[in-house]
């Protein structure tokens, strides 16, 4: 511990450093500092793990959202209806001319004969897709053996009916009462009376509803009361000012202002009175809810299912329910416990686009066993449509195929040629340097700018057709070119010079050396880069919007010059539609697109792994 003394004694060079005693690293203090440093270390490491975990969470969340909402769209619900396709209805000579709508409606009518009045019929017809006639026509044209007979035909449900069957419209709960019940009739208004108080559950739900309403209304009244008070004080203030005002003009203005405020006050008070009266009514309902009450569309709906019929609960007491029989009862017989049920539909009717009656009819069809869930072939075979259930991705997929074909056939040869020239032949001068800088910058130009280029040059100068995969492919080819060139150059660079020298040594020309020996060895790398570039192009949207590929196109494009759209643009368009069924289709289309992209990338990785060679 005599460092200082030693220090002064010893020569400057090589001596101990001033100010630090020896053994400084093993003191308690140092150990304490060390502990602190280690906690810092742990914290830093935790940040890193946190960052990775966050990124992974984002990915999981994104995929979960999309898969969760997209998966149901891969299947669709059809209702099997016996349809009369006899010669009487469909002329075998001219099957296209028949009224398939009528045929389907007749079939449905026969299925639910009790839906006899116009209103009920309309509800019934709305259960199947409005494009069902087109599907049926196509089915008949493709398979004439269906003609002349009455057989069950699968008719697609409407989009909301489909969502309901998939359980995406409302949650359902069923209760099995433990006592017997009697019914007052089979049609129209029917009362179900149970031996024990079985319907308290419904009343409990009603009570919650009233509670919430009262709370809401009380809040509103309070707010109104506050504004009332403020208007009153404002009037008072104005009146004092008026009393002290000498200037007649100002006085007049103040008077009119007071008038205006008073009128407003009257209105507020009237509204307040009304709300207070409402509150009293509600409170009354609430107080008496144990005795019974009336249900409305803003609270969960309840069905009583008894004797094969469905009654929608309207007036409820603890032991009885009165309501409309949506599905008529088979008999008026008393039912023992366990043979009847109460079904709760949690989402209030006014909050969904699928009415109670539609639900009752659909349930009836399901109970009959005629609804079946099938692979959604429409989604994979149809083009765009305004009707969610008739819209498919096939048109967009074919458009994507044409676009990619054009992109590949342009960017691959051009990109590889450019890479060969730049890597193998180009002299190192200002020109080639310019090209290189150019390529690097092009790789970072926003994709939408390529779209502007396509619009200004390909469409307006060259006069190529709008919305065509040809133009889309050309734009995407220019966009992927840098990726392919850069990847190809890297692949060519990886081929050792000895291969070239060997080829040149046996008398090949430089071109022959490259094309016969270097290029085949570099091919796996080039292909990998190309696939990655194509995957980018496949997912690209923005530039295609610029050249009109965002059009609504029903037909499947038959060539690269037909108007069409592509998968990502289809996703973009569908994402804008408000119908929930379209939201699911969007997610499903995203899943298809991601499937393509992931398999392309996986293929590229396999290619790289398989042919990767190190020299």
């Amino acid at each position, binding site marked *: 511990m005599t460092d200082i003394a030693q220090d002064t004694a010893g020569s400057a*060079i*090589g*001596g101990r450093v001033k*100010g*630090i005693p020896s053994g400084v*690293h093993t003191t308690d203090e140092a150990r304490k*500092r*060390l502990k602190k440093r280690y906690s810092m270390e742990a914290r830093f490491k935790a940040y890193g793990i946190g960052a990775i975990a966050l990124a992974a969470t984002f990915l999981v969340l994104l995929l979960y959202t999309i898969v969760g909402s997209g998966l149901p769209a891969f299947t669709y619900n059809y209702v099997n209806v016996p349809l009369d396709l006899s010669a009487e209805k469909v002329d075998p000579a001219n099957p296209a001319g028949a009224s398939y709508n009528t045929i389907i409606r007749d079939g449905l009518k026969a299925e639910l004969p009790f839906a006899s009045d116009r209103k009920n019929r309309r509800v019934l017809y709305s259960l199947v897709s409005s494009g069902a006639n087109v599907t049926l026509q196509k089915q008949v044209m493709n398979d004439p053996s269906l003609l002349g007979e009455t057989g069950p035909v699968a008719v697609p449900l409407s989009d909301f009916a489909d969502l309901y069957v998939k359980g995406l419209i409302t949650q359902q709960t069923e209760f099995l009462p433990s006592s017997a019940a009697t019914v007052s009739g089979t049609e129209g208004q029917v009362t179900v009376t149970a031996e024990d108080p079985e319907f308290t559950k419904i009343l409990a739900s009603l009570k919650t509803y009233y509670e919430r309403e009262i709370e809401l209304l009380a809040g509103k009244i309070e707010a109104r009361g506050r504004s009332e008070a403020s208007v009153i004080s404002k009037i008072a203030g104005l009146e004092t000012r008026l009393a002290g005002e000498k200037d007649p003009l100002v006085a007049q203005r103040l008077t009119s202002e007071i008038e205006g405020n008073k009128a407003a006050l009257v209105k507020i008070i009237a509204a307040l009175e009304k709300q207070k009266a409402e509150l009293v009514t509600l409170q009354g309902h609430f107080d008496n809810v144990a005795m019974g009450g009336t249900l409305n569309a803003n609270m969960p709906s309840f069905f009583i299912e008894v004797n094969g019929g469905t009654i929608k609960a309207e007036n409820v007491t603890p032991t009885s329910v009165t309501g409309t029989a949506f599905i008529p009862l088979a008999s008026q017989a008393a039912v023992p416990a366990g043979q009847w049920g109460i079904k709760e539909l949690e989402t209030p009717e006014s909050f969904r686009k699928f009415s109670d009656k539609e639900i009752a009819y659909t349930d009836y069809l399901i109970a009959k066993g005629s609804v079946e869930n099938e692979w959604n072939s429409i989604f994979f075979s149809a083009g765009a449509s305004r009707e969610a259930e008739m819209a498919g991705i096939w048109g967009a997929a074919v458009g994507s195929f044409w676009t990619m074909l054009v992109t590949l056939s342009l960017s691959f040869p051009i990109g590889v040629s450019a890479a060969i020239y730049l890597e193998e032949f180009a002299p190192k001068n200002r020109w080639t340097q310019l090209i290189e800088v150019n390529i690097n910058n092009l790789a970072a130009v926003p994709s939408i700018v390529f779209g502007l280029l396509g619009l200004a040059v390909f469409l307006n100068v060259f006069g190529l057709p709008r919305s065509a995969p040809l133009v889309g492919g050309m734009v995407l080819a220019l966009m992927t070119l840098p990726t392919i060139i850069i990847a190809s150059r890297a692949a060519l660079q990886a081929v050792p010079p000895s291969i070239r020298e060997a080829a040149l040594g046996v008398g090949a020309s430089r071109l022959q050396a490259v094309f016969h020996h270097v290029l085949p060895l570099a091919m796996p790398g080039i292909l990998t880069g190309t696939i990655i570039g194509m995957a980018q192009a496949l997912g690209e949207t923005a530039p295609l919007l610029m050249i009109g590929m965002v059009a609504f196109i029903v037909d499947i494009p038959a060539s690269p010059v037909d108007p069409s759209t592509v998968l990502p643009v289809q996703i973009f368009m569908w994402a804008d539609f408000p119908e929930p069924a379209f939201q699911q289709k969007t997610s499903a289309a995203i899943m298809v697109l991601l499937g393509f992209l992931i398999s392309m990338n996986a293929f590229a990785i396999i290619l790289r792994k398989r042919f990767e060679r190190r020299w």
Partner: protein
Amino acid sequence: MTLEMTTDTLSAVDTTVNAPPAVSPEGETLKMRGRDVKVFYGNKQALHGVDLDVRKNRVTALIGPSGCGKSTFLRCLNRMNDTIDICRVEGNILLDNDDIYDPRIDVVELRARVGMVFQKPNPFPKSIFENVAYGPRIHGLAQSKTDLEAIVASSLQRAGLFEEVKDRLDEPGTGLSGGQQQRLCIARAIAVAPEVILMDEPCSALDPIATAKVEELIDELRQNYTIVIVTHSMQQAARVSQHTAFFHLGNLVEEGLTNDIFTNPKDQRTQDYITGRFG
């Protein structure tokens, strides 16, 4: 507490803090002791059980042909091999009486006590001042800015660099010449107040004049530090070291006073190496 150096198994960590330091038969204090040190890189064994003592305030030179394991052994002494994933070390290495591979020993503390200077000068891309201040800063050795400045100045002085750089302490350390850079790295190492300094061929990237300066510095440093140096150059080993260990194919062939090794090697291989038959 036996301190017999012949035993191959030493107690892992000496719990009695004030245990007397180990001494060599000649009465010199042993700063570090390696016993049966084996190193594996994956499946490949790089060291086959090396026993070597490092004497306090002496320069110990590790010599041998390329790939003989001398650098590997050096890097074991402050556990720099920890940074290599596939590297595994067996055996015991003691610093004073503590086994440095004991889980209770902290590697950060160890490296503060056993500093290292690398083959290629590797100043940080910071100013000269910041380069030297780096160690004291991270270890919290300076209480104030004045303290820190004193430590930096003193370290540069001890490394014989102060006069050359005192006017440009704010300039980047990477702007110095190779020899100066290496002395900067030595200054950086002694600023942490280590007990042992490991040098891995510190002069191999330097010209002869710079080499001479660094060698001179090593000799000066010996008074206060224990130094282990790996070198390729016989002459350098002869010039700077008091003890020499000859490694060959992962084995310690021979060790002893530098003079003895160079003038009277016991092993044929040492003889061959010194006389230039291989290497």
